């Protein structure tokens, strides 16, 4: 049987791109170069200085007698900015977006900039640097549950728009803690202060902002985690019996040590395949909500070490799936949009069917059936794949002979 073929969802909505004009309220001008190089310094992400120097407008054009010296100076300048980077550098950015329309269900006016999936984009040397903020819980929206109060505020807002949001922040790391923004260069910022100002530069909203705090990551203990109720560390026979009980399905046991392209650290796998959605290039019928597939790899001691489960759902937006998964598994380790999220420590991606650059102890992929299996389907459906691997075992497992 072929390994699962990861195909990332095409379910993301079309991106909305708003280009903000310079804001008169800016305390200082944000230099994307300083921002990007500071992020490279504090994150440890490599930066190609030579390429940046060669792409610099200062050295563009035909070579001259002075080109070498100009390049040298430019290289020194970039290194100086990079080397001075630290988490204590404060930046200020101004976004031409303020307070959104009243959300009647939630009883609040959202601050669009701080909604999940929103990021600020800073192109630098043809690369896409994305800024997200970590401590947005207290500034995400203006709570106003009383309709009369909200109506009056809404009337006032109509006279104040357009508005700008001014954010003073510092860089504290990489990645979107909400798991909604992916990419190679996601800069995580901590808001130091923020305010929404009207077109006359009068403050409309300026909440207190709490610093970002996150509990030190606890040691990831695979035996304490489950995906859809299933855990690693269980004997293969018990696992097989539990699956058969829940799904009334034939659970195939494949002892495939050294066969079929399976990683040589596994001795075989159990599989429940109601849908034939786990590769193989054929299917018996079209998928339907409620269908499941499970594959669980065991080691030479017959202990389950890796579990992959897919379930088919009626069509739904990605965001509630992402929110539910983060509520379940916590701060993400890496994401690629909301369609791929990884949690916990990294593992050798060769042990996994779903991975993105690196493998993680827990991953979630969101696909449409046509992404996963090809073909066209009349019913709008979503397939959510969860994957769990014992990272401690993965770090120590040896190929079986």
């Amino acid at each position, binding site marked *: 049987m072929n390994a699962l073929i990861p195909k990332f969802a095409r379910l*993301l*909505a079309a*991106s909305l*791109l*708003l280009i*903000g*004009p310079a804001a008169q309220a800016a305390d200082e001008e944000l230099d994307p170069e300083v921002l990007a190089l500071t992020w490279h310094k504090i994150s440890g992400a490599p930066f190609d200085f030579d390429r940046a120097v060669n792409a610099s407008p200062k050295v563009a054009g035909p070579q001259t007698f002075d080109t070498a010296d100009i390049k040298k100076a430019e290289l020194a300048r970039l290194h100086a900015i990079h080397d001075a980077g630290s988490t204590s550098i404060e930046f200020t950015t*101004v*976004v*031409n*977006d303020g307070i959104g329309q009243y959300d009647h269900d939630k009883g609040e006016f959202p601050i669009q*900039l701080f909604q*999940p*999936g929103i*990021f*600020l*984009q*800073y192109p630098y040397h043809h690369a896409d640097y*994305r800024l997200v903020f970590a401590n947005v819980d207290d500034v995400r929206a203006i709570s106003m549950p009383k309709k009369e109060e909200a109506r009056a505020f809404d009337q006032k807002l109509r006279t104040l728009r357009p508005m700008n949001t001014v954010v003073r922040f510092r860089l504290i790391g990489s990645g979107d*803690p909400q798991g*909604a923004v*992916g990419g190679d260069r996601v800069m995580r910022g901590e808001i130091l202060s923020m305010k929404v100002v009207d077109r006359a530069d009068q403050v409309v909203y300026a909440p207190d902002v709490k610093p970002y705090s996150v*509990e030190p990551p606890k040691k*990831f*203990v695979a035996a304490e*985690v*489950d*995906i*859809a*109720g299933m*855990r690693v*560390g*269980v*004997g293969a026979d018990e696992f097989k019996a*539990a699956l058969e*009980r*829940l799904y*009334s399905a034939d659970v195939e046991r494949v002892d495939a040590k050294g066969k079929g392209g399976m990683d040589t650290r596994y001795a075989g796998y159990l599989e429940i395949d109601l849908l034939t959605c786990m590769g193989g290039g054929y299917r018996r019928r079209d998928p*339907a*909500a*409620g269908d*499941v597939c499970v594959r669980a790899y065991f080691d030479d001691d017959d202990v389950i070490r890796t579990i992959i489960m897919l*379930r088919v*759902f009626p*069509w739904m*937006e990605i*965001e*509630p799936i992402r*929110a*539910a998964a*983060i*509520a*379940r*598994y*916590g*701060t993400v380790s890496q994401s690629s*949009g*909301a369609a791929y999220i990884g*949690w916990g420590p990294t593992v050798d991606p060769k042990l996994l069917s779903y991975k993105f650059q690196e493998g993680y102890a*827990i991953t979630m992929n969101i696909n449409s059936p046509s992404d996963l299996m090809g073909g066209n389907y009349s019913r709008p459906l979503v397939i959510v794949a969860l994957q769990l691997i014992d990272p401690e075992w993965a770090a120590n497992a040896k190929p079986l002979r």
Partner: protein
Amino acid sequence: MKTTMLVLAAALVAACGGSDPAGSAAAPSAAKTEELPLRRGDVWEVDPASPADAQMLAYMYGLHSFVRQGDDLFTATTRLTNVKEDGAALIASLGAGLEARIEERDGKSVLAFSSGPIATLRPHQAPGEQQ
């Protein structure tokens, strides 16, 4: 002056959930082998015609298909340990303040999450089996 691009990466529907570290979000524990209800109890599953958000939440916590034996709930190889009775209902604490309530409503068994979504439960049906 520089410009700043505000970009929406994904469809926005709901606010973010909690943020418990991996491994600590839920209270359930691994079922001991001898505890696994391989023949005991009743198997229940979420009706796939239920609202998608309720099915999704159930899936995240293994409650899309589970074994109930009295007041004990087993999701595959996990036993939900924080389960209590509330009248005729059974309430499972899932961590981060989320609860799942199993009870009868209008003559149907339901799985109602404290965050709002409600799924209909039905006795397990084998694949292709019509109720």
